[in-house]
Every structure is written in C-alpha cells, then in structure tokens.
C-alpha cells in the first residue's frame, strides 16, 4: 500500500482527470452558457452573454427565450415523448430477446462460451453506421424480406417498413442487442449454481427457481443492460435519420437539424441541456449499478 502515500500518485491521477474535466465536463458549461444566448448572423452564430460596453461596464444579457421556445413549440415535446417511448419499448424487446441469449451462453461449456461471446461481440466491433445501412438492405421496399415474401406468395405487393416507426424499432433492436446481452451474461455467469440446486432439492419447479433465484440475482445485469440500450437509444440520430420517415422525429435528430439545418446553435444547445436533465435519472441509475458491478 506504499503507492497510496506517495505524492507521485498525482502524476497518475491528474492527466486523465484534467483531460476529462476540460474536454468532457466543461463543454456542458459552455453549452449551458450558449443556450442562454440568442442567434446572431455572425461567426460563431450566437450573441455574447457578457459584453464589455464602451463606457467600461460589463453588460449581462441572458435570454430564457430558447427554453420557452422548447416548451411552446409542439415539435420538441412530441420528439421527447416519441424518443422516450421508442427507446422504452425497444429496450423491453431487447431484454426479452437478450435474456434467453445471455442465459443460454452462461449455460454453455467454457470453450463454447468464448466462441459465442465472440459471435455476439463481433457486430459490436464492426461499424454501427454500416450495420444500420445493412439493415436497410433487408427492409427496403425491394429488400430481401419483401422479395422473399412476394416470391412465396405471402403478400401481393411490397409491405412498407422503411420510413415507419417499425423500421426505427428494428434498427434500435438490431444495433443495441449486444449491449443488452453482455452485461446480462456478466451477472448470469457469476450466478451461484448451488442455490438453484438447493431450490430444486426443496421441490421447487424450474420456473419457480428461475423467478425466485435467477431473476433477482441477475437484476444488476438487467438494469445495466437496459440503461446501456435505453439511454443511447433515446438520443439516437443515425437510426431515425436513415431508417425513419419524416414523422419519426427523435430528439437526436431534432437537435441535429436545428444545428446543421437551421444553424440555430442556441436552440440546439437548449435542446441538449434539457435533454440532459431528462436523462440525468437514468444515467445516475446506470452509474450506480455499473460501479457496484465493477467494484464487486
């Protein structure tokens, strides 16, 4: 434990701490500052909050107009609700799909386990953007699903999946499934098998043992996996932009359009800050369980 007493430890702690404070934490302060400014036709395109007037006075001009605008314009409320709903149901479906998968992997032999894990992780390593694009090839009007269904005579004309909510759901589930399986596997793997045996010995049917023993013990994994899917899915941009239609307004897409389309940086900042407040609860929940799991 001698390491701990040395002042030299700050050589180890400070570089990452300072880097993250400057480039991850402080940016939020700037976003907050600019969300209180107004747009201006100049570079960068917003007004100064604090100006130094000619007669040597500091002039503070704060505008809450951007936040008021978020509350009054229906688009934002709609987009927030639509994003939350889409992310919530996608997370549930991922959980329903991912839990049996993680459970099956945790039951496999050690050598099969590592191969199965590699199979699950591999899509996570390959490009997210390209996988969303690959999905488009399946669900397009002339994609493989419609071609097969038409050929088999199940449908008479192509069903439209692209540019609907269904496409956004499929996209999120497809892209985020590995994020659900991995944390679930991590907790299911550590599951104490003797408890299940004890339950069986005491006459508990397997489904009962599952509900009473396995499920409660895997709860940290359920929460970590759900948050890993839910939080990024709420802010998803690529999926609604490439697969969704004009109605599938998710908040990430609204922010993007506000920034790149309308060049309204202050409103985009206000969207980001308001969004962050909405996500603060889920992020804190994730942190709590994640840290507990890491330090267990």
């Amino acid at each position: 434990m001698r390491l701990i007493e040395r002042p030299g430890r700050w050589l180890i702690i400070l570089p990452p701490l300072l880097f993250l404070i400057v480039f991850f934490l402080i940016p939020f302060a700037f976003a907050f500052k600019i969300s209180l400014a107004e747009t201006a036709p100049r570079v960068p395109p917003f007004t100064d909050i604090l100006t130094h007037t000619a007669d040597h006075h500091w002039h503070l001009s704060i505008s809450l107009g951007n936040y008021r605008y978020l509350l009054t314009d229906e688009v934002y409320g709609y987009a927030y609700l639509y994003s939350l709903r889409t992310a919530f149901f996608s997370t549930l479906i991922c959980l329903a799909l991912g839990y049996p998968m993680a459970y099956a992997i945790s039951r496999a032999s050690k050598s099969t386990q590592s191969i199965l894990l590699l199979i699950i992780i591999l899509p996570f390593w390959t490009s997210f953007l390209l996988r969303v694009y690959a999905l488009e090839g399946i669900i397009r009007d002339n994609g493989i699903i419609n071609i097969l269904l038409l050929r088999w005579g199940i449908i008479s004309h192509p069903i439209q999946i692209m540019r609907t909510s269904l496409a956004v759901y499929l996209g999120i589930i497809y892209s985020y499934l590995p994020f659900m399986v991995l944390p679930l596997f991590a907790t299911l793997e550590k599951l104490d098998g003797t408890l299940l045996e004890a339950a069986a010995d005491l006459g508990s049917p397997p489904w009962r043992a599952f509900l009473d023993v396995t499920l409660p013990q895997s709860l940290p994994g359920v929460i970590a996996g759900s948050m890993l899917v839910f939080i990024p899915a709420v802010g998803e941009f690529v999926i609604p932009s490439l697969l969704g239609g004009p109605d599938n307004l998710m908040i990430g897409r609204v922010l993007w359009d506000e920034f790149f389309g309308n060049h309204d940086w202050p409103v985009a900042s206000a969207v980001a800050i308001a969004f962050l407040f909405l996500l603060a609860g889920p992020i804190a929940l994730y942190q709590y369980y994640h840290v507990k799991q890491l330090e267990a």
Partner: protein
Amino acid sequence: MERRFSPVLFCALSFGIAVLYIPILVLIAYSFNASPLVSLWGGFTTEWYTKLIHNRQVLEAALLSLEVAVCASTVAVMLGTLAAISLVRFTRFPGRLLLTGMVNAPLVMPEVITGITQLLLFVSMLQMLSWPHRGFTTIVIAHVAFCSAYVTVTVQSRLQTADRSLEEAAMDLGSSPARAFLEITLPIIAPALISSWLLSFTLSLDDLVISSFVSGPGASTLPMVIYSKVKLGVSPDVNALASLIICLVGGCVIGAGILMRRAERQRLLEVQQAERG
C-alpha cells in the same frame, strides 16, 4: 452446473445470432451484384470494388479516419489506463467520485449531446485562445474523450483481478513501486491494453455523430462520406466499401482474439510450470 441446453434456449440463441448476422451477409452478397438495381441479381462482379479504389474522396476520407483512429486510440489507451490505475489502486483521493462519473458517463451519453457540447467548447476556446482549429485536432480530442472511457472500463476490470501479491513481493525485495508495476502488473494487463486499443480504434473509425459536430470544413471522415452517400440514395460502391470495412475489422478482431487467447494460455502454462518446478 449441468449443461442442460433446452431447445427453447437454443432457438432463442440461434434466432438472436441470425438477427445480428443476416443483414451483414446480405450486404456482402449485394456488393458483388453486377446489377446496380438492388432487387435484381445481375451476376457476379467485382466492378464496385475497382470503382472504389479510384474514388479520391473515399480514399482521402479513409486516410483521415485511419490517422484519427491511430492517434485517438493511442492517447486514449494511455489516459484510460492511468484512470483505471487511479480508480483501482488509489481508494481515496479528492476527485475520485468525479473521475468515476466522468469515465462512466461517456459510455451511455447520447452522441449528439457530447458532440454539440464539445463543439461549443472548441469554438469558445478558438475565440479565447486561437486554438484549436476545427478539423483533425478537434476530432482526435473528441474521440480520445469517449474512447478513454471504454479503455478505463476494460483495464479496470482486468486490473481488479490481477494478483497484487507478486507486486508487493517485488517491492519488499527493494523494487520501486513504478518498476514493480512495469515489470509485473503491466504484462498481466497487457491483453486488456491491446484489446482496448483495438476497441478504441474501431470506435473512432466508426464515429459519425461526434465527428460531424466537431470537424470543420474540408475535414470529412469516412463515416461522414458514407453517411452523405447513403443519404443521397443507394449506391452499389457503398456496399463494396461497407463489406470491405466489415471484413477487415472483423478479421482483425478475430485474429487479435486468437492471438490473445494463445498468449494467455502460454502464460498460464508458464505459471503452472514455474509452480511445479
């Protein structure tokens, strides 16, 4: 635990894996389709791949992305490892909670939020300090920030399981803490360092949203070029490009996985022999 692999579980697992892989396989098949119309199979061709090699825009973007990914993942591994050491080895220091929060938040933070906040920082810094100009530098910094989070988590879990008694023994024998760490613990966590470098590399190579926000005019990374091509409509050379990237990255990951497993087995074997000898 008995290996009771019920048919239900087997079906669930196979279905899940099929869902993950079918779109990728279809995409690769399309990339060899001679017909530019996606619905028709016009025979086998490698025409789209040849077209790709002559596309300057794609090549320049690919080069920029590779440069960014190499720089960002190297710095991220250094910073992330330091953060992991701090969190695992120093149980109490001012700012520990803050550091814990900051290394875990980027894992779930929606990219649009990270992207816009970092852009606003860079713009304000440019006004005050005349640095950094938007482009290569800002993309690298932004990528380091989120990649180092993944590095920290990976190295942290490895470091937690590392046996400290050897390091303590070395220090008892007069080795300095730094030397004990470098000679004993570093080789143990080396696989985690390699895999987190690879992970950072692929994450950086893949990032669209954050790069789009923080990059300036003229600096387009590969995902930015792909996104704008896809937005314009289906072009068969994107299929070829996508297949190429997926196979390259997949091959590297599988290769690295095999190498690391072999090294790990070798190490365990040596440990066993040392214990016996």
